[in-house]
């Protein structure tokens, strides 16, 4: 049994005719990336695909040059987290450039959530309203907090969580890739314990499926990821499927050691 088990599924939903979400997983390097594209004349899918492709590649390449779980004294983050955050900045610039070069891509953008597993830890980077959850001992918690107008209003005490659920402007994101030069990705690091299930998803799931339904589904199908992901997408589609739905599930079976790169092998990296 490998230390990490991952599955990524994306579905167009019921109401849309094309899918602007994009997902990517690399089990051997412990990387998972999910993006929800938007804007432009259907160029959202260009933005999300660029983001996933670039971030996966950049992170994978950079991981070769570091040991596992080294902490950067300046920021207090792991090198893994900083690599992921840097990849987000690079992807942001690439998307902005592509939009400037291709008029049909003008106005495109994307959310992004990235997980990099190392040892018994995980570094999560995110921009926008795509989320990461953790199911541990049947308790579901939010790892990320949305960069949305609603969430900022809640954080500043202008709205209660209840108001937020009923709000009609849930889908205004305040941060995204492809919008401004200085994108700021939030970083959260956590311990990944054996038995943990991490779930990444686009708002196509969370806008229409309550946390409790997600929790129960994750518990019910925890042994069969394929069924689990399909059940989650089914819930969103049964609720009208107004948006594209993407889900990445990751189960932690043990401490993860990524496939070592040439350099770290050469220099005896951990």
């Amino acid at each position: 049994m490998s230390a990490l088990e991952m599955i990524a599924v994306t579905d167009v939903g019921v109401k849309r005719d094309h899918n602007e979400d994009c997902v990517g997983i690399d089990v051997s390097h412990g990387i998972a990336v999910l993006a929800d594209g938007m804007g432009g004349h259907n160029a959202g899918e260009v933005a999300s695909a660029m983001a996933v492709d670039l971030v996966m590649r950049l992170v994978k390449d950079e991981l070769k040059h570091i040991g596992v779980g080294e902490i950067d004294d300046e920021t207090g983050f792991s090198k893994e987290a900083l690599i992921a955050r840097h990849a987000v900045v690079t992807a942001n610039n690439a998307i902005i450039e592509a939009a400037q070069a291709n008029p049909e891509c003008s106005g495109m953008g994307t959310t992004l959530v990235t997980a990099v597993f190392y040892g018994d830890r995980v570094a999560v980077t995110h921009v926008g309203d795509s989320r990461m959850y953790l199911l541990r001992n049947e308790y579901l918690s939010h790892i990320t907090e949305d960069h949305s107008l609603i969430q900022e209003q809640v954080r500043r005490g202008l709205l209660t969580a209840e108001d937020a659920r009923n709000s009609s402007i849930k889908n205004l994101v305040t941060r995204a890739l492809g919008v401004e030069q200085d994108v700021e990705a939030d970083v959260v690091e956590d311990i990944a314990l054996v038995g943990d299930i991490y779930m990444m998803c686009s708002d196509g799931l969370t806008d229409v499926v309550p946390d409790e339904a997600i929790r129960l589904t994750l518990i019910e199908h925890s042994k069969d990821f394929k069924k689990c992901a399909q059940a989650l997408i089914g819930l969103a589609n049964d609720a009208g499927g107004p948006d594209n739905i993407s889900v990445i599930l990751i189960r932690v079976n043990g401490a993860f050691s990524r496939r070592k790169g040439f350099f770290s092998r050469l220099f005896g990296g951990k």
Partner: protein
Amino acid sequence: MSCKLILKFKDTVIAEYELTQEETTIGRKEGNTIHIDNLAVSGRHARILKIGNKVILEDLGSTNGTQVNGKGVTKHVLSHGDVVTVGKHTLTFSCPEAGQKQVEAEEGEMDKTMIISSSAREELLEKGGASATAKPEMVLGGVQYLSGPLMGKSVELKASLTSMGKGKNCKIRVPGLLVGKQAAVFTRRPTGYHITHLEGMSKTKVNGESIADHPRVLKDGDIIELADIKLQFYIKS
């Protein structure tokens, strides 16, 4: 994009409003951008948001509802020539640039995620009465020992993850037969500090209460206990 609303009452033009702000509110109460003093209009009846190249009308739960071209709406992307009815008044939306595309826009358009610019975001948040700081910095905090041999000593929690337990790798060492190697972990997040109990028979407590294995947000002054060690959490900046 210059757009305006023409306020009419029974075909008589009363006023014209340029939509210059990100948010324009319509209602009976004073303080609304478009103030209509008529009992058929709710205090805060509706609002109009300018987001990117879209102009969105949103009913704010008004008593008598909001109609566009005679049809009740809760949220609607406005197109050039749309007639918005609130109570007995009408507002004609004039905006040649916001024209054609929106007419073709699908019904589901409103479910699509949209990005708002940072300036629009600040404006919308300030409207709500909050002082909008551009980019909130991650706060820095720490813990101070209130018991044991290290009593009085402070440990800054600068790393994104700081472990507590009897293991060698823990920054906060807590001895005890029943204490887990990595009994608990402090995580420093953009939203503040969390503590999560991970392992060991000795349970981590916050303010005298066991936190089980659910992550818990830490507040300035919280008391954390594990076995014989007592710590006080503080926010530094």
